């Protein structure tokens, strides 16, 4: 299952490109949110390199636009981004046999798509893993910096009724299927969907995180039928 590509950096760039497509309309949504919150475009854009997380940035500026206090907006944005802690735990074993600079730099580009790429395209050899991870991460980074700049500059140029924003759940369904390469993992995905729906009324989308934790615990406690 684990493979070491001959050119991991190139592979990382190429694997990252298609996953960025759904982030494109999101960059324009971000532009609209910044404009509606009445925040100067350069200040709004500065959150891209400082925060580097689409949903976190959008949550922060939506709440600021609604007149929330800094404390409330920041804590809500961080709760929305709390799933990154799960990525941090999950990838911790892969960061063990790595130089410490990679822990500093790698953490910065640990976003949804980079996390899932590291899970569905496992690279065994540490140096190759590092190159693959950083190439994918900084490909996203460069595209996100460019597209959010266009987003805040151009604002609502894409008509909302095209529903390009639907590309995001479509991509994540596709990523979910790629990550569910065993029946028990597919079961975990189905359980997480049901639990997230049940817990959806909880504030700041915290239900999502609780749903994932419950799912992982139940999967762990249930007797294992599949032995790879």
């Amino acid at each position, binding site marked *: 299952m684990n493979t070491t590509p001959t050119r991991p950096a190139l592979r990382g760039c190429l694997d990252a490109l*298609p*996953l960025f*497509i*759904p982030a494109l309309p999101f960059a324009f949504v971000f532009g609209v949110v910044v404009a509606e919150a009445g925040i100067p475009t350069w*200040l709004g854009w500065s959150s891209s390199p*400082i*925060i580097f997380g689409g949903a976190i940035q959008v949550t*922060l500026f939506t709440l600021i636009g609604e007149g929330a206090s*800094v404390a409330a907006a*920041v804590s809500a*944005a*961080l709760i929305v*981004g*709390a*799933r*990154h*802690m799960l*990525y*941090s*735990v*999950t990838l*911790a*074993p892969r960061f063990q046999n790595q130089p410490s600079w990679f*822990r*500093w730099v790698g*953490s910065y580009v*640990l976003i*949804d798509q980079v*996390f899932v790429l590291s899970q*569905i395209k496992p690279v065994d050899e540490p140096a190759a893993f590092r190159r693959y991870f950083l190439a994918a991460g900084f490909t996203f980074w460069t595209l996100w910096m460019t597209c959010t700049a266009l987003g805040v500059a151009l604002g609502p140029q894409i008509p909302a009724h095209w*529903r390009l924003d*639907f*590309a*995001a*759940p*479509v991509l*994540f*369904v*596709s990523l*979910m*299927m*790629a*990550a569910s390469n065993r029946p028990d*993992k*597919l079961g975990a995905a189905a359980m*997480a*969907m049901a*639990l997230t*729906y049940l817990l*959806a009324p*909880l504030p*700041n*989308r915290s*239900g*999502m995180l609780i749903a*994932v934790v419950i*799912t*992982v*615990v139940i999967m*762990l406690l249930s007797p294992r039928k599949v032995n790879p």
Partner: protein
Amino acid sequence: MIAIAIILTGIGSYAMRAFFIFALARYTFPPVLLRALEYVAPSVMAALVISMMTTPEGELVAGSAECAGLICAALAARYSGNHILALIAGMAVFWGVTWFN
């Protein structure tokens, strides 16, 4: 004030990503924990999908077009393993069903 909010959120989100990578850098993972971590990726992706299809108040906003699009994307991903193809299939079905409704 907005600049402070951005900087605080930036520090917080970096800390969340880095925390366990640093905290567990010298920790030997027991096999049971490594097994648990295998379920994180499918669960988080599944939870993200539902999260995107619900309002912040927890109401599901998925009609027939959304459901058809997501199911087709899932099937296309399953049988092709290609995310671009899954994206095209999901969006095409979504727009198609929206058009007919």
